């Protein structure tokens, strides 16, 4: 999937930007090693990966470990930018919480979105509880 912009009547791709949406179902059956390998392979292809769902905490730290091992071995790879957006349902009415809980169970806790991009393309992901902003390099 490629983002496109229009300038002077022409359609241009935003240089270097390529998004890849990874449905949770595509990685749900994979073990931690395979999951991280798949994500890093996409990132090495200069893609910003959007995962429907969030990685487990041990997968997030493994992602950082494996990323560092690759920075050391792959020329011009400088690492990743990573952010997880999770809707806050703490203050939601009871029935909304119940519906959300049920939906999460059915989808494998995939209500969140995880955004991971190569640090060379994504300059920064500025995150606060209410907004998420991706700055392109």
């Amino acid at each position, binding site marked *: 999937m490629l983002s496109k912009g229009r300038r002077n009547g022409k359609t241009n791709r935003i240089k270097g930007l390529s998004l890849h949406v990874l449905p949770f179902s595509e990685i749900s059956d994979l073990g931690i090693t395979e999951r991280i390998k798949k994500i890093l392979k996409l990132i090495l292809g200069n893609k910003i990966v959007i995962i429907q769902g969030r990685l487990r*905490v041990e997968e997030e730290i493994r992602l*950082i470990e494996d990323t560092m*091992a690759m920075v*050391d071995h792959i020329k011009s790879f*400088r690492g990743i930018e*990573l952010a997880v957006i999770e809707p806050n349902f703490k203050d939601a009415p009871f029935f909304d919480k119940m519906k959300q809980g049920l939906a999460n169970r059915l989808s494998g806790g995939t209500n969140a979105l995880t955004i991971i991009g190569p*640090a060379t393309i994504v300059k920064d992901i500025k995150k606060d509880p209410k907004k998420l902003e991706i700055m392109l390099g």
Partner: protein
Amino acid sequence: MIKALKDLSRRFLASFFGKKDDIKIGFYGPPNAGKTSLANIICKDWTGEDMGKVSEIPHETRKVQIKEKVEIEHKGKKLTFKIVDTPGIATKIDYEDFMKFKMKKKDAKKRAKEATQGIIESIKWLDDMDAIVVVLDANENPYSQVNITVVGNIAARNKPVLIVGNKIDLKKANLKRIESAFPEYEVVGISAKKNKNMNEFYESLFRLSKKV
């Protein structure tokens, strides 16, 4: 899972047979938050020696550093522990960032290589800690994914945590933001550079050690 069970049984035995006198307290956090500066104050105050070198260039600490048997005394209470100062955890390392500090390309590349290895080493040490002090720069956004990932992993390992908001002497410092980012943990604000609020920090450290 096995590790968590081991931790639980170790803590149960420790509470049954008395307190461990050499608990390992790990200092974790992003680069340049002031982990080594804080460790230096503690070590200078109680052992008369520095822990490590500090610098304005990120990733000054690139190897895990350990100070054995640090004994602190505060309000009549004693605490003996090992300080484990770890390299800052980050998701990216760019040698060109170091060149902005007038570092030569060759040295910057060497520093980057060491920094990546340091991050891997920091993560590997997580399992060995008895308690963890997460040091954050109170002037930076605490909601970075690295902070959340580090704290999430500590929580998953059932390790006691104290969060330190450092650099509170600076204008933009916002301790409330750290407290709202991590509401389930005790947060203490200090300035390692100005040696400010260290009494409050030591009190928090005693409370942390009781949870081990």
